[in-house]
């Protein structure tokens, strides 16, 4: 007898595993931070505190307790979403990090979207118009996967468009220095700017985002194309395409159907790309001064702010695992054959 539970096991199990993985990761992070040679209190104050001050800091960090008690406290605080206080900002690490996640996520998703558009257009050119010069360019470009580091493209973009051509604004923030950012509604900065409806603000925000997004999407589109071009080629030869040709379908219909069948494989790749894209976004943020998790992490590193670094690691992993879960579930929804314990129809 099939119950609701066994029918839905494929997504329930994944959903339940997420907090478990996160918890395990948090324990690892805890021990890594404890492995750091030297006295955390001395490192944090850069050796400029008196003995009593050091004692105080140790007391406040709970460093005088046995390790197992520290671990227990750490995990308990984690459950209450209390990651401690960031020394660099003086605020709660959790609210610091969470308020910056949307900024990074927005940049990442916009770059992924542009990369997907580039990949789809160029792959279509490569497969459906194989004799055109575009096809040659597209195939050559798809081989550049991994050979075009995103932050190199970012630097080149700054050098070409800011230093030499002087057409783009200085890579120092999301808006012109004279403008004040719009009131935050969603915490997604560009979306907020759009919501504000102020055309000058929107133009400024867009011009500040063009270069980082172009650099990221140009760096990552080849990865998608490497998957998409063979997929499309396979589907062009597939029986269902022949059937459509035989029954006199239009060229447009053919292209749509080929894409529809080739896309699930690409979805998986784009999901696993998101991890690298977030890493790329971190670099872009400090290169273009965009704020977000990346800049926060770099600041925390420069200030030897252990609680903030811990918090960044845990929240980033949570975000990445959540994205992977969503991609995973999307693929399973699109392709039920992959589900664990799926009943073959």
């Amino acid at each position, binding site marked *: 007898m099939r119950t609701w539970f066994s029918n839905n096991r494929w997504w329930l199990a994944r959903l339940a595993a997420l907090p478990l993985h996160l918890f395990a990761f948090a324990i690892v992070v805890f021990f890594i931070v404890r492995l750091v040679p030297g006295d955390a209190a001395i490192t944090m104050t850069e050796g400029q505190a008196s003995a009593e001050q050091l004692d105080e800091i140790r007391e406040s960090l709970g460093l005088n307790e046995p390790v197992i008690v520290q671990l227990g406290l750490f995990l308990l605080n984690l459950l209450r979403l209390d990651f401690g206080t960031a020394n660099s900002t003086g605020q709660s690490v959790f609210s610091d990090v969470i308020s910056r996640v949307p900024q990074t996520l927005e940049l990442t998703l916009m770059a992924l979207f542009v990369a997907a558009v580039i990949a789809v257009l160029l792959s279509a050119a490569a497969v459906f118009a194989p004799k055109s010069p575009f096809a040659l360019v597209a195939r050559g470009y798809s081989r550049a996967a*991994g050979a075009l580091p995103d932050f190199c493209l970012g630097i080149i973009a700054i050098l070409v468009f800011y230093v*030499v051509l002087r057409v783009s604004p200085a890579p120092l923030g999301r808006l012109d220095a004279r403008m004040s950012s719009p009131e935050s509604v969603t915490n997604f900065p560009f979306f907020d700017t759009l919501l504000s409806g102020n055309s000058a603000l929107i133009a400024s925000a867009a011009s500040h985002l063009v270069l980082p997004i172009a650099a990221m999407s140009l760096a990552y589109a080849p990865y998608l194309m490497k998957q998409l071009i063979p997929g499309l080629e396979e589907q062009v030869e597939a029986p269902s395409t022949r059937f459509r040709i035989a029954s006199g379908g239009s060229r447009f219909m053919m292209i749509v159907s080929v894409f529809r069948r080739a896309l699930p494989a690409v979805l998986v790749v784009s999901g696993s790309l998101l991890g690298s894209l977030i890493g790329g976004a971190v670099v872009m943020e400090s290169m273009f001064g965009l704020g977000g998790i990346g800049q926060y992490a770099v600041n925390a590193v420069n200030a030897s702010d252990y609680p903030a670094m811990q918090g960044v690691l845990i929240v980033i992993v949570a975000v990445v695992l959540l994205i992977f879960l969503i991609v995973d579930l999307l693929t399973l929804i699109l392709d039920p054959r992959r589900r664990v314990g799926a009943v073959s129809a």
Partner: protein
Amino acid sequence: MTTFSTPQPAVDRRAKAAFASSQLRWWLFLPAGILVLIALIGPTVLPYDPVDIVGVPSQAPNADHWFGTDQNGMDVFSRVIAAARTNMFVAALAAIGSTLIGIVIGVIGGMNEPVRGLRGFLARTLARSVEILDAVPAIIVGLVLVALFGPSTTTIIVVLIVVSLARQSKLVRTEVLKVRGDSFVDAARMAGALETNIMFTTVLPNSIRPALENFSATFGLAIIVEAALGFLGVGMPPPTPEWGTMIATGAADALNFRWWGAAFPTAALIVTVSSIAIAGSEILRKRH
């Protein structure tokens, strides 16, 4: 599969293409070879000391300083060449280390996963952890780890190994899970081979191919992550010549419209990564 209905020219073309693709195109290894040469002998024939102030700061490229000088007055050309050794040496060690460790983890984990009891549980936990490690952005983990343990060559190599071993281990594990059930493994078992021997002499040689094929990609990625760490400020301690750190100082200088400090190390980085990718894809190309 030649049939009579196939037009003759098509067959000829295919035969020609097959012949062409059966040859190793040695010239595709030239860029990588030249780079290795530069890394080996370049630092010994530099025009200037790469870690010393040798001229007026912020000179544009000229006859004395081919790539100009940076904001501290160090010669950019000498530093770019000297950094080739640092960057490629560190990344090569990291790629070799992560491939070796990845293979060991992949084989031990993959072989033990179906075992009941604690051993199997640990192996399955290992597989899950490797998957999580593979999902986490390498740059963020690297940034935090290097910051915690202090930037030094050893730390950076270890951190690069940690962030790149997950992919290698995953590739090996997938292969081990396939190979494990093959009849030659059963044959070895029936011949009375020890389980450890089966693991390392029977299964390992037959399951490391994907990791070796991925070696050039790992190497390229290690170079990129290393430079990104340098760019974010946790690279080799200054004034060690290192492309990422040079790009960071150069980028700060670019705001004053001085392009050369960042442009040359960036170009060096792209040329290096592309050369490795070209050589790697030529090794990987199927030749039958």
